[in-house]
């Protein structure tokens, strides 16, 4: 701004200095008519002894208004003078607050006497040295005390109390005047504001409070209404004991900015490290996932191929056994016949397992899709029960069904669900000793179709239930499968449930039987469920 006169900063400072000039002109131009006005009012006062009370009160109001106009004109002049010739930087000096308050009181004493208001001041002996700007503090205190006098009641009190702390001092200015509504606690410090008297009916407060606030801001201080009520009003001033001039503050701000910038660079650096690490981990994870997927694909392909390859020799074997039986077993010795039964049974079982393996491989492979259709699951349960009835009777078990008449699920794979249910029934019949009960239960619970098979068998200890469920997932790695006895049946049930977007469950206690079950979502098959 030192040489370029047409820079924006210079222009706005020109504008504001000419505005201050106008302000000063307006202030001084107002003075003469105001003096005239007040003289006229004083003359009228002398003549008013014989007036009606109503007329006299009008005159009194006029006198008050006249004094307020006078005050506003003074304020204008003050503002103009305060800004004229004052640079951006306000100099600092050591100030004795008690002396400052005394000189403010001395200047305002005549007005206080006129308004029948008394002063009190309290500044502690050991008061911190205040390094600030005397002119600014004086102007602020002057206007605040003036305000406290003007809005006091006759016989009222204005008390100034100072409190010192190492880094700042607090000055309370208390009056016993009318209270300030809380809505106005901030607005009274604003220079431009809606006309007070129109809004609240109170007298205009002039420019004193905004001036005080501006002056205090110059030295890094503040003023606010601490409280206001029937007992009066307390204004709180805070002033830092170490005043910093504009240049010091600017330098500090620059330092602050500089260190913030350094800090943000450090954050950016950290962020970069974390981000790079994240990227690396992420791509490692992606690679690992790809490898895992590939491995899984190979596994299920292997499973499919092996089971498929096993199927035909077992089919041949079974066929041979059937043909063997057709030639008649009568010629065999009892021992041979026993061996034949074992061969036939074992082959049948092995074939069954290969079938399961094939199904599991099919379910595990990503390509396999469900063949969903609307199925009346109630009907399906009934049919399975009928098919199992003779088997149950043959083993001395009582088979019951608890099912609604009709329960249609919009999209399930009929064959898979039939297989799954048959597995549960078959297991229950196999492991429940006679005499016993097996119950097939179909129900609908909150958007789920639940199919359960309860038995009165020996039950399964809690510890084994865990490994039992774990065994299901071990199907993916059949070589490591630890749990024997249940075969692949339960694993198949779980795969069917998962493939439909459902799951399996088991409730069992030794000696109290077991309930194996699975549920399917009623809304339809969630065939996109990831099985890996």
């Amino acid at each position, binding site marked *: 701004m030192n040489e370029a006169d047409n820079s924006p900063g210079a222009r706005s400072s020109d504008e504001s200095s000419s505005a201050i000039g106008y302000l000063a002109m307006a202030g001084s131009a107002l003075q003469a008519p105001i003096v005239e006005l007040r003289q006229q009012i004083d003359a009228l006062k002398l003549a008013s002894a014989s007036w009606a009370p109503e007329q006299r009160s009008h005159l009194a109001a006029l006198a008050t208004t006249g004094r307020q106009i006078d005050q506003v004109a003074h304020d204008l002049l003050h503002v103009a003078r305060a800004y004229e010739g004052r640079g951006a930087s306000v100099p600092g000096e050591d100030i004795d607050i008690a002396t400052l308050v005394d000189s403010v009181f001395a200047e305002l004493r005549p007005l206080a006497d006129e308004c029948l208001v008394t002063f009190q001041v309290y500044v502690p002996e050991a008061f911190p040295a205040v390094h600030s700007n005397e002119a600014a503090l004086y102007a602020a205190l002057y206007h605040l005390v003036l305000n406290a006098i003007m809005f006091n009641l006759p016989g009222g009190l204005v008390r100034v109390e100072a409190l010192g702390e190492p880094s700042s001092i607090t000055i309370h200015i208390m009056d016993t005047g009318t209270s300030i509504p809380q809505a106005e606690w901030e607005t009274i410090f604003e220079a431009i504001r809606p006309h007070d008297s129109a809004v609240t009916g109170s007298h205009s407060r002039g420019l004193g409070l905004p001036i005080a606030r501006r002056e205090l801001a110059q030295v890094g201080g503040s003023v606010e209404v601490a409280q206001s009520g029937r007992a009066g009003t307390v204004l709180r001033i805070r002033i830092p004991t170490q005043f910093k001039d504009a240049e010091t503050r600017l330098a500090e701000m620059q330092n602050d900015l500089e260190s913030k*910038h350094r800090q*943000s*660079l450090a*954050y*950016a*650096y950290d*962020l*970069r490290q974390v*981000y*790079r690490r994240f*990227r690396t981990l992420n791509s490692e994870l992606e690679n690992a996932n790809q490898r895992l997927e590939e491995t899984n694909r190979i596994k299920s392909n292997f499973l499919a191929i092996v089971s498929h390859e096993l199927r035909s020799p077992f089919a041949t074997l079974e066929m041979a056994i059937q043909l063997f039986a057709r030639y008649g077993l009568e010629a065999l010795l009892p021992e041979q016949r026993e061996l034949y039964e074992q061969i036939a049974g074992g082959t049948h079982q092995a074939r069954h397992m290969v079938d399961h393996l094939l199904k599991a491989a099919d379910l595990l492979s990503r390509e396999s899709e469900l063949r969903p259709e609307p199925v009346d699951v109630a009907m399906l349960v009934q049919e399975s029960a009928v098919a199992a009835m003779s088997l149950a009777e043959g083993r001395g078990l009582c088979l019951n069904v608890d099912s609604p008449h009709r329960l249609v699920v919009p999209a399930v794979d009929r064959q898979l669900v039939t297989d799954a249910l048959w597995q549960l029934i078959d297991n229950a019949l196999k492991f429940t000793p006679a005499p016993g009960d097996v119950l097939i239960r179909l129900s609908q619970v909150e958007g789920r179709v639940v199919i359960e098979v309860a038995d009165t068998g020996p039950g399964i200890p809690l510890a084994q239930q865990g490994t039992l469920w774990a065994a299901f997932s071990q199907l993916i790695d059949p070589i490591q499968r630890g749990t024997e006895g249940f075969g692949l049946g339960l694993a198949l049930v779980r795969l069917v449930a998962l493939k439909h977007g459902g799951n399996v469950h088991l409730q069992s206690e030794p000696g109290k039987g077991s309930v194996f079950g699975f549920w399917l979502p009623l809304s339809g098959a969630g065939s996109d469920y990831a099985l890996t």
Partner: protein
Amino acid sequence: MNTPKKILIVDDQPEVRELVLVTLEEGTYQLLTAENGDQALAMATRELPDLMLLDIQMPGGQLDGLQVCRQLKSSLPTRDIYIIMLTAKGQDWDRRLGHEAGADDYFVKPFSPLELMLKVDEVLQ
């Protein structure tokens, strides 16, 4: 490993250049800086960076960011440089002007370093 991708950072404020350098410095990229539009245009034409971060407002040179962008985008050898304009907060008009000048994207200052890293990785993938 391919030759490192080149990124040209153009901003008159050293703080912004520094922040971008710290954010992207990794050996992964070759980072170049310019302080004004004239430097930016010369360097972009000579070095043919893959990506450019270009401040819109830069006092001190003859050219502002938009002019640099327009010139680079209208010349065949430099047309494919991916240009991200840097605009100050609250300048809505920048966006339209930047688009008209052919800019590929824009960041509003102050921008997040993470956002920058993600964007750069995305563009230079």
